[in-house]
């Protein structure tokens, strides 16, 4: 095991001690065995704040090995401040290779997005989860929600979605849109936009979810059915953008709205920065100078 001497204190490979990793791996295995079920685990204090990805970091630290290639994204981008911070953490504590390319990564830790490029077998997508309980805002008590899951008592969630339709004519949930996993557990997909929900279904990669503050791990094994909750007469729909990405011209991808000036000027471009860059790299007509927005 690699011990990194930082002068004052020595830390294990990928920060966590091996006993902790074993405990987390056991929770992960249980989570994989019961897709969508929230497994309690003895979450540790991490050297970054709760709510900033401690669950995802613990999962990544427990599964990563020296041969892995890590990608970290936040809001789809590799260069958002917290993604940079987490990537640096693993560069420092595990010395693993990192990448921004989705295709080259074996482990991808993400907050709020799923990459646009389809994931492959052998890849692991690790989600950072703030509130793992999909029923939490309907029922604040853990003692109650655990019972509801155990009894598969999801009427409350359907009533909530129905009330949305009654009030607004459509379901007014745009992110953290609840899904049902393998026909059993209702699961929170983490606050990804509902645009990303269909990517979870029958995905070739293993999807792991870590909630550090709430001390829960859950999982979607490869090729598992993930269905967004809806009604026959109000089927689930993803949000569509009216224009393609202003930088790479991609359609059918999730876009960020950039405010250009104080006169209402704006442009839409890919939220997945790696996807956008790779497309622009392929297209010869786009000159390199257009590649950066400042």
């Amino acid at each position, binding site marked *: 095991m690699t011990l990194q001497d930082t002068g004052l*204190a020595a*830390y294990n490979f990928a*920060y966590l*001690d091996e006993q902790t990793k074993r405990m987390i791996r056991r929770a992960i295995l249980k989570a994989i065995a019961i897709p969508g079920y929230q497994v*309690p*685990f*003895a*979450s*540790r*204090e*991490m*050297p970054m*704040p*709760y*709510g*900033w990805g*401690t669950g995802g970091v613990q999962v990544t630290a427990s599964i990563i090995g020296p041969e892995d290639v890590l990608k970290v994204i*936040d*809001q*789809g*981008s590799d*260069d*958002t*401040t*917290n*993604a*940079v*911070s987490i990537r*640096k953490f693993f560069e420092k504590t595990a010395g693993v290779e990192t990448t921004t390319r989705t295709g080259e990564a074996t482990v991808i830790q993400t*907050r*709020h*997005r799923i990459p646009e490029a389809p994931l492959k077998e052998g890849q692991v997508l690790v989600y950072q989860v*703030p509130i793992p309980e999909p029923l939490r805002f309907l029922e*604040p*008590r*853990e*003692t109650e929600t655990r019972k509801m899951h155990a009894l598969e008592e999801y009427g409350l969630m359907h009533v909530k979605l129905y009330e949305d339709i009654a009030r*607004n*004519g459509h379901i*007014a949930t*745009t*992110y*953290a849109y609840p899904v049902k996993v393998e026909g059993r557990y209702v699961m929170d997909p983490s*606050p*990804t*936009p*509902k*645009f990303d929900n269909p990517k979870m279904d029958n995905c070739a990669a293993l999807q792991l979810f870590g909630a550090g*503050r709430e*001390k829960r791990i859950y999982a979607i094994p490869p090729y598992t059915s993930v269905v967004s909750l809806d009604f026959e007469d109000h089927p689930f729909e993803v*949000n569509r953008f009216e224009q393609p990405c202003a930088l790479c011209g991609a359609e059918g991808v*999730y*876009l*960020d*709205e950039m405010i250009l000036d104080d006169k209402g000027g704006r442009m839409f471009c890919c*939220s997945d*920065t790696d996807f956008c860059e790779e497309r622009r790299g392929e297209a010869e007509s786009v000159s390199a100078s257009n590649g*950066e*927005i*400042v």
Partner: protein
Amino acid sequence: MYVAVKGGEKAIDNAHRLLADRRRGDPEISELSLDQISGQLSLAVDRVMSEGSLYDRELAALAIKQARGDLIEAIFLVRAYRTTLPRFGYSEPIDTGDMKLERRISATYKDLPGGQMLGPTFDYTHRLLDPALAGETVPDAPERRFEEAPEKPMRVSDILAGEGLIEPDGDPSGRDPADITRTPLEFPLERETRLQALSRGDEGFLLALGYSTQRGYARNHPFVGEIRIGEVEVEFEAPELGGASVLGRVQITECQMVNQFKGSAKAPPQFTRSYGLVFGQSERKAMSMALCDRALRAGELGEDRVAAAQDEEFVISHSDNVQATGFVEHLKLPHYVDFQAELELVRKMRAEHAHRAENMQEAAE
């Protein structure tokens, strides 16, 4: 733009350099030493040790220095270090009856064996700013009441227990204690687990909740049976060494409250107990903890749960300031992907609203 498309890495490095500079302050002024912090800001050190769940004055002082005096940040630093330490086992229960007392008061008896001992307290000081302290001062040497160590006075709860007026204290379970740093909380909690969570809970939060019980939200008629502050020995049983060996001493504050209880279907009329225990000297925290402990025993004693302070999930889930500060402050992180989805929805709903208003207008005409 804090989430520039490129340059996040450089920005973070620069921010940390600036932070180091601001932490140091004016370089013309001599730097704080850890001894100064642990010696002269000792109550801040106590709080960091207590809520950081790590008894080490030097590390707590370092954390306070590194955190620029932000105590919750310092607690966080200590916790993140503590969690990496190997665990050899659990110490024997400390005996607070065997405490080397520095302060010991009871509000339930005028005088009692061992007497009232005020110790180093702010109580009865007039809160007048002392200009003399702006310079260097040499205080008078403290009075000493005993030339030799006094006898260990008995605990007030033991006096009451002798008469059978107070509920029994329960027997030690014999098994390893619960450990909230090694097992995820599962509600409802055992009282020992709850006390552990309260002991590392945020002082301000527990103070406010304890205060709320005094103002009628789950009033529990408390009396301060006894507060004692002093040092106790920590013993550890290592089978290799045969018997318990003393690891050292820790300073603690213990508060035992005595609460009126008119009895219920489950228990006869008697005084009930509530308990506060923290590292170092912090009466405010120990007392608040005891008030919350009593309120949280509502279910066990067959009382109606009517207020926030009696709601275990509410109190315990929100008492940890490291968790709370992290999640509140994570709102600073970019959320523009979700916000984009909400923007689209609000635009759509506004368009629908305008359309409906138009139709209504037409219908009216």
